[in-house]
């Protein structure tokens, strides 16, 4: 079966991705709500939305970094620009996300064009530092001097006194798409002890995520994608053959910037407040980590990396002493105290430590990122069958997600 101009293999892959995305509210909510393991459930709207949005961000970043080999340290700037554009549309027009999202893509694309044009005059770490410098300048100014535009530290938000010229009489007072309110849930079934949340906003981002994933798949498989991969492999040789690589790298930069802008716009579409910190270098670093952690250059890797990091940040930070007591209460006192003491290093206020350790472990033992972990597991199961076609050059084959 082939769909949308994809090969048979890619079609299957896309269908699997679509199924996984649509079933996420069930898949990441594996435990009954009443149980002690409820802490590990991630099936609530905000986290699901964040995973999908940062997945989009990482997919776009991967086109620049994974495919083309240019490591940008300033992509969070485009995320921020996307958010600010969208919130400004709320302030000027109304809460319909239809105005903000295209604008977010366009504005961040324009910024990416300018910044990319300048930064791509250099390569390697010089390029990285140029992008970092642009992003840090934008963050520092957004936090302080540009407060009239960005509302600084507090974050840009909608005030009652804003014009909102298109605001209709019956319009919802939070982001929506023609009346479909993003933060509302359309179905919250309870089955046994399990509770699932099907949220408008999540499905909105999920559908967009599938579309942009499909686009990225097409880019990977296109002659353009091949050219980008050639640039990563040996740019000098390409230059010698008379090919001007700059338009290709610039196109990759702008595309990834637009992905970031879309992600930023979606952040604002889910939650109408845009904080300046989302432009900081740590946020730029986060998307780099997501892509490397998941597997740079693979299709599914960035999404896995995004999900992994967001899960860690939101779930591990919430494990406090009373949760730990709940888990270990059945143990003898001494052992319980010991385990809680050990856990203090890894959860709650120390969740950063866990993420740091995870980065190290993954990069040490799985050089290809989480995707490689998936491949190894798959290889274990496949061992009995022939291992003939696992040849070279399949780096970008999305085997892991299957």
């Amino acid at each position: 079966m082939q769909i949308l101009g994809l090969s048979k293999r890619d079609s299957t892959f896309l269908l699997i991705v679509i199924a996984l995305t649509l079933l996420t509210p069930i898949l990441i909510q594996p435990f009954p709500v009443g149980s002690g393991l409820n802490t590990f459930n991630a099936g609530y709207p905000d986290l699901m939305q964040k995973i999908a949005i940062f997945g989009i961000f990482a997919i776009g970043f991967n086109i620049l970094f994974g495919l083309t080999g240019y490591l940008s340290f300033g992509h969070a700037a485009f995320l921020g620009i996307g958010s600010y554009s969208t919130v400004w549309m709320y302030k000027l027009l109304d809460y319909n996300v239809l105005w903000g999202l295209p604008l977010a893509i366009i504005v961040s694309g324009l910024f990416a064009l300018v910044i990319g044009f300048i930064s791509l005059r250099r390569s390697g770490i010089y390029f990285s530092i140029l992008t970092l410098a642009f992003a840090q300048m934008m963050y520092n100014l957004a936090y302080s001097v540009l407060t009239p535009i960005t509302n600084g530290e507090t974050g840009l938000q909608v005030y009652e006194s804003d014009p909102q010229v298109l605001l209709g009489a019956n319009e919802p007072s939070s982001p929506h798409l023609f009346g479909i309110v993003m933060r509302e849930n359309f179905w919250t079934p309870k089955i046994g002890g399990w509770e699932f949340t099907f949220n408008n906003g999540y499905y909105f981002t999920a559908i967009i995520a599938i579309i942009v994933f499909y686009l990225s798949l097409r880019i990977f498989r296109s002659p353009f994608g091949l050219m980008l991969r050639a640039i990563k492999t040996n740019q000098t040789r390409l230059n010698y053959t008379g090919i001007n690589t700059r338009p290709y790298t610039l196109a990759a930069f702008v595309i990834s910037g637009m992905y970031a802008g879309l992600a930023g716009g979606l952040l604002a579409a889910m939650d109408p407040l845009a904080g300046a910190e989302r432009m900081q270098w740590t946020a730029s670093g986060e998307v780099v980590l997501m892509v490397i952690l998941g597997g740079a250059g693979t299709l599914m890797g960035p999404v896995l990396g995004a999900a992994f990091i967001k899960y860690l940040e939101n779930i591990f930070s919430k494990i406090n002493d009373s949760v730990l007591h709940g888990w270990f209460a059945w143990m003898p006192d001494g052992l319980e105290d010991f385990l809680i003491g050990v856990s203090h290093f890894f959860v709650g206020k120390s969740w950063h430590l866990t993420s740091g350790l995870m980065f190290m472990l993954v990069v040490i033992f799985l050089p290809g990122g989480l995707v490689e972990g998936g491949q190894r597991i798959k290889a274990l199961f496949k061992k009995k069958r022939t291992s003939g076609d696992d040849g070279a050059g399949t780096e970008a084959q999305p085997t892991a997600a299957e």
Partner: protein
Amino acid sequence: MSKSNFTRRGLLKTGAVTGAGLAMPTIFTSGAAAFTNEPTGNTVTFGFNVPQTGPYADEGLDELRAQELAVEHINGMGDGGMLNTFSSKALDGTGILGKKADFVTGDTQTKSDAARASAKSMIEKDGVVMINGGSSSGVAVAVQGLCQEAGIIFMAGLTHSNDTTGKDRKANGFRHFFNAYMSGAALAPVLKEAYGTDRRAYHLTADYTWGWTQQESIQSATEALGWETVNNVLTPVGAGDFSSYITPVMNSGADVLILNHYGGDMINSLTQAVQFGLRDAQANGKNFEIVVPLYSELMAAGAGENIKGVYGSMNWNWQLSDAGTQAFVKSFGEKYGRPPSNSAHTCYVQTLLYADAVTRAGSFNPCAVAEALEGFEFDGLGNGPTLYRAEDHQCFKDVLVMKGAENPTTEYDTLEIVEQTAVEQVMYEPNHPMFGGDDATLGECNDGA
């Protein structure tokens, strides 16, 4: 007029609020989920959203200690703390409306985005009815806005910017902590007495919204004394080395340096100002002085000896001698082996005030709780008689003026109370220009139904 009134839901909501006064029992006891996260089991969950990573992690840790203590006291464990001294006797140590209080915690990272994400997970996943905590105004405003949208109550933690109950005030948000205006108003008379009326002040101000409101407030308060403002220089947040901002002070003709900095910025700028000899310097024939409008225990600890003799203000201090303070310090000290900080105190009090308001309202409905808090007058929680003003949800109470102690005996009394400025002195109109003027409105209470 709030815009949400024009929406269908807004109309229903307004109807519900109006109806609440007339026939509360029938409205709020009927049917499932009359409002966001209506507690149905035998527990009710609070969300304690404090910084657990980043520069303010220690402050968040202390807030968390106090919040846990408050939950214990509400549930009748421990010695009851301030419940014994609180003027309202609605809470009797059997939980809230027959439900046991429970809590979840989250990490704000002192970032608006992260704080909102953490608060959202509490609302969406854990079903909290109230969120409390935080140590920055940006976070407080961001989370307050979220609680307003979601239809739960926000009891602010440490947030000192005028905006929280000024231009960003919300019907579902309440602040017990004092604010920048109050700091200025409380400090002014003490500064006048100590340093006279003929002074020239140089401001270093953290370049973000809190810094600006703090600077604006203290400038207007000192100028009212007759002081002259020589200059106001904005410094980047987290600058670390402030030397290039401090050296121009020395030959500027100023004789007072006002540091509108908080946390690590204040520790570094004060330490470096002292290193550059400003404390020992003479200017205009007077001793050069340094003022830090907002103090905290952690800042005092970090700055060490450099705070000796430096004036500042606080919301509360464990060295107060009233019964409420003593009860709180005793139960906190016995549990954790240290006196509570003023951010811990405000979080503890806010949690109790919320629980008390629920009990008096007889409902967890945020609009009923808000109504019970609005205009509520109470005593026995450490600050003397206090009013939760209905117009802007700001508490009004005495403000403490502090000074770095010359001879501290332990690591906990590095600050001493100089003056308890009376509440009348720090009062202002709800439509004061520093608080958003006439444009600032609370909007409509939202219960999320």
